[in-house]
């Protein structure tokens, strides 16, 4: 099986698609869409083959591909996957296919360029999760940055340039620090052993002084914390999400944020375990702040996408909370939160995209009563709302409960405070659901059997439902919106199935990660296994 470079095939099939589109100058828009879809699907198929070939009992790197590149300076082409990267890779390949489907009708302007950017982004994201050489990793990391900034800046909504620049500069600042840290680690390892390498596995064997660890840990951490994003490095996220096109938001929430959590697990923990333990209490505090702060700010949002963006800050807080508790439940929790958040938040952005595409607004007050004319839409919305607010039996609960348990074992108070999110998440999600999916369209009078009609005097509410009453004529009446079509169902259904599957029977997913997580925890005592 060594002969088939499955990881490379998976990583570059989107790139091949991008090149085809690039050189077929006069390609009709539909051909471009199909090429992109096929390229992404091929990548998805390869990732599933990877899963089939993956040995679940092995904790080491598998399906490894190495190629000597610049051996004198330790740069080599080095790919491999373990139980931590496999689920994230499949999440990525799947979400890319979904993102392309979601852009099918939504993007009508510069379709060629859009799909090229999308496919480049796909290659970059997959590459990040499979690279084991820091040089290669850094290249892929930066490859992700540029297409995403372009996607926001070109295909975004009104304030897109500000958001794109903010996103770019924020993450670039983190990247540069990481670059410095990579060079420093490389140099330190060279001084210790006389060997020049940028292989993560080898660098993790190094013995770095405590002081050195602290600084380099922080540099890496800063880059990843911005990506996650951990409070207080999160303010790029709401702007980026609000301005990005639907597919951009899906990939941003579904994949890009996970690169932060993945980076912490792949680099910070194995390379700088002492620093990780020293900084753990501080990071736990930031995580707990993120969890509560994100939920509170989500509560008062008036824009659907901003609400989900702030809820992301809250959910992703569980990733760092779990990782830095350094026990089995925390690692499982962090991984499952990452996967679950990718599925659920991705789906929520798709759902916002559905109504945005039809009504050209994301303001909560412009909607109401969607369940009446969009019953399938309402069912999906309800499902993902409950997954997001951590209803047991759906994926969100498994991850977040494990992360809270992990924190509670090490820092009781952190566990208790973060448990408060069960109230807040229900509050902000349901309040939104009530106003958007339930009740009635703005300005629509109560039905004839509504008990509201019987109320008199002070009890009686204004005779129109929902909203502030300033209903403009140019607004699209939510009553006229059509239900999700077959293509939209196709994008939502796989996410729904996985959300339920992970919630009801997370065993297979957890077994896949177990050896890698156990190995990851070894330097920290490996408690909880």
């Amino acid at each position, binding site marked *: 099986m060594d002969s088939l470079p499955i990881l490379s095939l998976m990583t570059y099939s989107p790139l091949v698609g991008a090149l085809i589109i690039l050189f077929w100058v006069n390609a009709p828009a539909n051909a471009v869409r199909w090429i992109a879809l096929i390229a992404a699907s091929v990548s998805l198929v390869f990732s599933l083959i990877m899963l089939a070939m993956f040995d679940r009992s092995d904790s080491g790197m598998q399906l490894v591909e190495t190629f000597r590149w610049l051996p004198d300076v330790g740069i080599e082409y080095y790919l491999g996957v373990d139980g931590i990267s496999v689920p994230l890779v499949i999440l990525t390949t799947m979400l890319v296919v979904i993102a392309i489907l979601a852009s099918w009708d939504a993007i009508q302007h510069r379709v060629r360029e859009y799909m090229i950017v999308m496919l480049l982004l796909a290659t970059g994201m997959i590459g990040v999760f499979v690279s084991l050489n820091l040089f290669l990793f850094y290249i892929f990391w930066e490859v992700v940055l540029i297409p995403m900034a372009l996607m926001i800046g070109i295909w975004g909504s009104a304030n897109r340039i500000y958001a794109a620049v903010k996103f770019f500069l924020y993450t670039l600042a983190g990247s540069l620090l990481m670059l410095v840290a990579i060079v420093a680690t490389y140099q330190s390892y060279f001084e210790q052993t006389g060997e020049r390498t940028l292989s993560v596995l080898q660098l993790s064997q190094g013995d770095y002084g405590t002081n050195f660890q602290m600084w380099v840990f922080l540099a890496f951490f800063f880059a990843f914390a911005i990506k996650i994003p951990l409070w207080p490095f999160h*303010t790029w996220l709401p702007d980026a999400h609000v301005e990005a096109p639907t597919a951009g938001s899906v990939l941003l929430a579904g994949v890009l944020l996970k690169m932060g959590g993945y980076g912490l697990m792949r680099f910070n923990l194995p390379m700088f375990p002492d620093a990780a333990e020293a900084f753990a209490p501080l990071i736990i505090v930031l995580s707990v702040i993120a969890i509560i702060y994100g939920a509170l700010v989500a509560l008062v949002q008036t824009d659907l996408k901003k609400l989900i963006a702030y809820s992301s800050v809250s959910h992703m807080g569980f990733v760092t909370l779990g990782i830095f508790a350094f026990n089995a439940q925390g690692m499982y929790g962090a991984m499952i939160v990452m996967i679950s958040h990718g599925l659920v938040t991705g789906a929520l952005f798709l759902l916002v995209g559905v109504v945005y595409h039809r009504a050209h607004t994301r303001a909560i007050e412009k909607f109401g009563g969607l369940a009446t004319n969009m019953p399938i839409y309402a069912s999906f919305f309800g499902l993902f709302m409950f997954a997001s607010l951590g209803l047991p039996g759906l994926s969100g609960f498994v991850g977040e409960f494990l992360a809270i348990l992990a924190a509670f074992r090490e820092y009781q108070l952190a566990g208790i405070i973060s448990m408060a999110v069960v109230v807040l998440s229900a509050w902000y999600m349901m309040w939104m659901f009530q106003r958007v999916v339930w009740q009635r369209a703005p300005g629509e009078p109560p039905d004839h059997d509504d008990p*509201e009609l019987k109320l008199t005097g002070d009890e009686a509410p204004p005779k129109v439902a929902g909203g502030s009453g300033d209903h403009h004529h140019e607004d699209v009446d939510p009553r006229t919106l059509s239900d999700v079509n077959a293509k939209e169902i196709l994008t939502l259904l796989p996410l729904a199935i996985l959300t339920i599957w992970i919630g009801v029977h997370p065993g297979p997913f957890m077994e896949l990660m177990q050896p890698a997580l156990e190995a990851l925890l070894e330097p920290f005592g490996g408690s909880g296994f």
Partner: protein
Amino acid sequence: MSSWLFLIPLLPLAAAVINFILGRWFLQHASQWLATLAVAGSFILSIPVFLEIVSDEQAISQHLYTWIPAGDFDIPVTLFVDQLTATMLLVVTGVGLLVHIYSIGYMHGDPGVYRFFSYLPLFVFSMLMLVMANNFLVLFVFWEAVGLCSFLLIGFWYRRRSAASAAKKAFIVNRVGDFGFGIGILLIFVTYGTIEYAGVFDMVGDASQTTITVIALLLFTGAIGKSAQLPLFVWLPDAMEGPTPVSALIHAATMVTAGIFVLARAYPIVSQSADAMMAISIVGAATAFVAATIAVTQYDIKKVVAYSTVSQLGFMAFAIGTGAWVAAIFHLVTHAFFKGLLFLGAGSVIHGMHEEQDMRKMGGLKKYMPVTYWTFLIGAAANAGIIPLAGFWSKDEIILGAWLYDHTIIMVVAFITAFFTSLYMFRAVFMTFHGEERFDPDKVHPHESPKVMTLPLVVLAVFAATIGFIGFPPEDGWFHHFLDPVFPGMPHPDVAWSTIIIFASISTVIALSGLFIQYMAYVKKSISPAGIAGLLGPLYKLAANRWYLDEIYDVLIVRPLVAFSMFLWRFVDTQVIDGTVNGVATLVMFTSQQWRKAQTGLIANYVFAIALGAIIIIGAFMIFGSNLFQ
């Protein structure tokens, strides 16, 4: 027998899923038969399970699969049936079946009927799994799942703002309790290393007394939410926005008793902490009293029954707090029947009155709906504790328990509450069915409900009248011996017949005096309720306004939290954090702007600068680099 235990919850689940997916386009009204048959199947399967438990006195279980294998946190899904669960199985499937049958009539013609008959069996499934769990986490899963069903069914008529708000409120308020419940589960795991009942209960004593008390109180926090105790009961009256059969099944007979069930299930923990028991008894008694006072002042027939439910749940809670464990479960069972009956009866009245719920617009309905009247009367009398109906035996035993276990103050509160119970129950009966007709006979034509609705009423009425005898004689009935293995080590006080008769007499006098007062007030009109209300002044206002709990929450919690969130967003996020980020950008921009001024584009300036630079460099070299000045 245990090999097909899984069918009991699976049947309603299957019906729920099929109805949800196929209901709108294919099944429509056929969904009601599928759901009803599924629940009937569960009920029929529950009977042999119950009988096996009765005969063998051995708990049975069936392992299904491992849910979360996270290292040493390894959570199985295992069905577990002992005496307590077997009792709940019959109550849930039995009342569930009757409510399903009733709903066929009640929901007839509603365009969302398939949704209704998807959510309702989903609830039955969740409730069955809740009582059949063998560990605290799976219990919690279905504890939340019944909350989900409650949310969906309260908000069934989602186009109504009031229904949508009530559904949201119910879920969020329940989650406040779940916050504590969740931490309780964490603490159990951290303390005992497992969350399976059997393992935890074997090791209870290994933990410190403080830990045991904290765990018991945290579990009770969950019960405060789910079983609508003070201070979280505010969601339950609002939950009446849901269709009435939902109120009967979920918000009276089954789901709201889950909190009581959990406390009974955790008997080995809770009973070890005298402090926790004390707290439970105080909260329970206060809830019983407060809710009963509110019930007397309500005009909405469903609200009366709803506050009555809160009050009766308070009885169950303080029964547990005082140590009358069996009495609490006994009351749970009798209450399921008579309160389910009262709700379905209220639903029948509302149905017959064209969706009118205000008792001030009823009166004299006895002659229009005789079956509803007689069954409602039996339910009301059972609730008020009229001998020999079901509620009498269980409530009397709770009060007797308070006395037996030396909780005299609680006993007095209970007697006072029993008086209020009789007051609000017979007020509802007389206002609705007796006296003059206060509706507009041109617009409203009261009629008896169809057979499919009255049949469940009759069945429930038979049980509400007779089920009490499973607990006869008090403290020594069949039910007490049956539940004995669930509460090991519980004291069995010998109660003299004279004591029993004295308590029964006091209860009866209290119940009858309530009946008499309301008869005088609403039938004979010789007492003016308005006059009494005026006499009580602020006290009446307090009760009529539900002790201002909603207003207090709004002012103390909701508004400050929203304001704080606004502050976080508008100030901390936008000003402080983003301000810093943008500030850095502005600083860079500003500095660049200053440097930019050097680029004048005039050759002369550049030549001057070059010359100046050359002089400085050469000068510096001469000063520091050479020995010219040394």
